[in-house]
């Protein structure tokens, strides 16, 4: 299979980025050290090339109504200028993708989807489009996307853009970098304050180079995965997939049952979870995806969906999917690491509290 390259590929190679295949793309996994990149984002500012993500535009008088009917979260009643995170579900309630809907202006909606799901999502959007007065376009190939993340993100980005007001967390604003139009959202996947900047390929390349020249740390997919897991954000293909519903992934809060209608509403009305997604922290050992999770009697009750070594805590952390009828009432779990059980503590809070606004 041929892999795709973002417009910034040569920049990553120039910076010594290690390139790995990811969701059909050749992406930088790390530049210097995962630890340094994670800490740059937690304490200062880092930038990720996330141009592999997909962009759909929905334009026309029914734009908000069309998107609202596809997703579980409430698009219609959210104010203009808001970004809304939501699962996209089938009629039976299983998750096609998780995405962010940006309400740019009346009748003007941007939807950002996961790289590996672009074709699947667009086919789904198209199949449900009949009867709505709005145009639907997949402009994933036209846009590059940078995520500038960390407590100093605003300070770094503000002087570079034509204007950047103190927009709220999960809000969006259209402006320009040099003469290139950009869509800037106060969103991200690290738990820190930061912005995601959608722009033209050339404009984004110029912005990337500018960020490098002012000392922003380039960060790769490995740091991104540690950061998102430390603050307990789910990842499609791991915590979410074609077989689970939003409740199985702890995303019940995104299902707005009061909405008149949306695809999956009926199936999701009983709020029925088949699994419980739990957060585990280990004093010893590093949990990895696929490792079995055991109860205190050493019986298998679930599986790790994502696991890593937390850079901030220096401990193994993981999401685990537990069969709901086997979720133990006590809080003692074991993770089977190479045929040895390691005690794991259940936690209800994120492993690390990010500093997003």
């Amino acid at each position, binding site marked *: 299979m041929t892999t795709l390259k973002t417009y910034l590929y040569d920049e990553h190679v120039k910076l010594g980025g290690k390139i790995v295949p990811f969701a059909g793309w050749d992406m930088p996994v790390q530049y210097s050290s995962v630890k340094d990149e994670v800490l740059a984002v937690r304490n200062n500012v880092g930038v990720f090339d996330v141009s592999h993500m997909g962009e759909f535009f929905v334009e026309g008088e029914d734009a908000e109504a069309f998107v609202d009917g596809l997703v579980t979260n409430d698009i219609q009643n959210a104010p203009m200028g808001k970004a809304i995170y939501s699962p996209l579900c089938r009629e039976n309630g299983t998750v096609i993708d998780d995405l962010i809907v940006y309400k740019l202006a009346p009748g003007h909606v941007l939807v950002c989807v996961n790289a590996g799901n672009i074709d699947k999502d667009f086919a789904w959007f198209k199949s449900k489009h009949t009867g709505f007065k709005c145009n639907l376009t997949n402009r994933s190939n036209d846009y590059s996307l940078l995520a500038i993340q960390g407590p100093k993100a605003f300070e770094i980005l503000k002087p570079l853009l034509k204007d950047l007001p103190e927009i709220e967390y999960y809000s969006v604003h259209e402006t320009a970098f040099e003469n290139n139009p950009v869509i800037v959202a106060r969103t991200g996947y690290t738990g820190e304050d930061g912005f995601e900047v959608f722009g033209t390929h050339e404009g984004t390349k110029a912005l990337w180079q500018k960020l490098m020249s002012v000392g922003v740390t380039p960060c790769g997919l490995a740091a991104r995965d540690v950061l998102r897991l430390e603050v307990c954000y789910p990842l499609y293909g791991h915590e979410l997939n074609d077989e689970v519903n939003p409740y199985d992934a702890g995303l019940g809060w995104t299902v707005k049952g009061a909405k008149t209608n949306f695809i999956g509403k009926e199936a999701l009305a009983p709020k029925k979870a088949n699994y419980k997604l739990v957060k585990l922290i280990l004093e010893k*050992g590093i949990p990895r995806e696929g490792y079995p999770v055991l109860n205190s009697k050493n019986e298998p009750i679930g599986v790790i969906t994502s696991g890593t*070594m937390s850079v901030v805590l220096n401990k193994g952390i993981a999401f685990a999917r537990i069969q709901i009828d086997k979720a133990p009432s006590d809080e003692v779990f074991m993770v089977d690491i190479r045929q040895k059980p390691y005690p794991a503590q259940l936690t209800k809070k994120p492993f690390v509290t990010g500093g997003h606004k």
Partner: protein
Amino acid sequence: MATNIPANLKYTKEHEWALVEGDTVTVGITDFAQSALGDIVFLEVPAVGTDLKIGSTFGVVESIKSVSDLYAPITGEVVGKNTDLEGSPEKINEDAYGSWLIKVKVKDASELNNLLTAEQYQEFCNSSH
């Protein structure tokens, strides 16, 4: 990839290095391996007294993002273990050749012929990456 491959050591295709001194072989992972793995955060090696078989896995090294098996370059008994690395496996990133993992007493010296020279290992790294 620029890499550091000392001429006095022998190597495996699984990126272990071996220092042969008499009937004892000191084993570590190469600079190429530590660089490919990234930040090393966990190490598991067998206890002194464990018997190893050439080519079998004898432990694991984990970086933040990955788990890699370690392969025995030789058959023999583990006679030493680098306890300096317990609690600070990141030393391997800083000095791959100074951070040995185990020492093995060689059972069959003819097996040493299976190991790659520095030149052969360099060629192997160039051709496979």
